[in-house]
């Protein structure tokens, strides 16, 4: 019943032209997504990170917990994180739970990249 989470790692440039890692998620983000999300997070090294939710269909509270775990790692190492591609509903949910305090939420990739 749960769509597998796929995460690909990409690279773009931030406002200053410095490299920014992009984690592109697709499918569901739920309790079964741990290896996909946290594995991808471990594979990116220094610098800011963009989270692309454009192709995500479903996020539940277990998935939100995994996103918080990524933000915990980012906070420990002082890395900036921004997210884009969330539906208006999930932008609201991410704001409600406080994720927006630790990751800027943007409409699209260029705006999100420009914030880093």
């Amino acid at each position, binding site marked *: *019943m*749960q769509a597998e989470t796929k995460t690909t790692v990409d690279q773009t440039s931030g406002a200053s032209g410095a490299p920014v890692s992009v984690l592109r998620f697709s499918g569901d983000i*739920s*309790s*079964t997504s741990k290896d996909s999300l946290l594995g991808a997070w471990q594979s990116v090294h220094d610098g800011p990170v963009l989270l692309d939710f454009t192709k995500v269909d*479903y996020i*539940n*509270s*277990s998935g*939100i*917990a*995994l996103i*918080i*775990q990524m*933000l*915990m790692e980012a*906070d420990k190492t002082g890395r900036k994180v921004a997210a884009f591609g969330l*539906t*208006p*509903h999930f932008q*609201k*949910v991410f*704001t*409600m*739970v*406080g*994720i927006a*305090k*630790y990751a800027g939420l943007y409409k699209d990739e260029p705006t999100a990249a420009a914030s880093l």
Partner: protein
Amino acid sequence: MIPTAGTSVEVRLPSRLGFEKVAMGTAASVAQLMGFPPDRIEDLKTAVAEACINAIEHGNRLNEKLSVGVILSATADGLEVKVVDNGTGMEKQPPKPDIDRKIHGEEDPRGMGMFLIQALVDEAEWVHDSKGKGSYVRLVIRLDKDSEFDKESK
């Protein structure tokens, strides 16, 4: 819009994660027939999903021999959803999640489900049965209201 007041729809789910999506889809279909706007249907879907996940994981402890009942009852002014499991329910509500404590490792990163349910619907009530025969969460979403969060954002 189809007249729906007084009608009810019931779904039984196996206690297996992922099947909450069946309840989400059913709740969304009923809410659409009742004329709820799309943003409230999204609120309802998330609240129903979280209630079902709690019932599957904590109420029925992932025991696939037990099912989770989802009863959707349409009234003139809203939709009531009861999610019933075989657990003993909760004696008290968990504290409101604190993102700063979570980020700094002082609080479990999980534990957002009940908070989301309460924030997204107009009424949420947890009824526990110490005999484990019918604990349930009852959610109500009203036709003429924004969510509490949307009201505060305006």
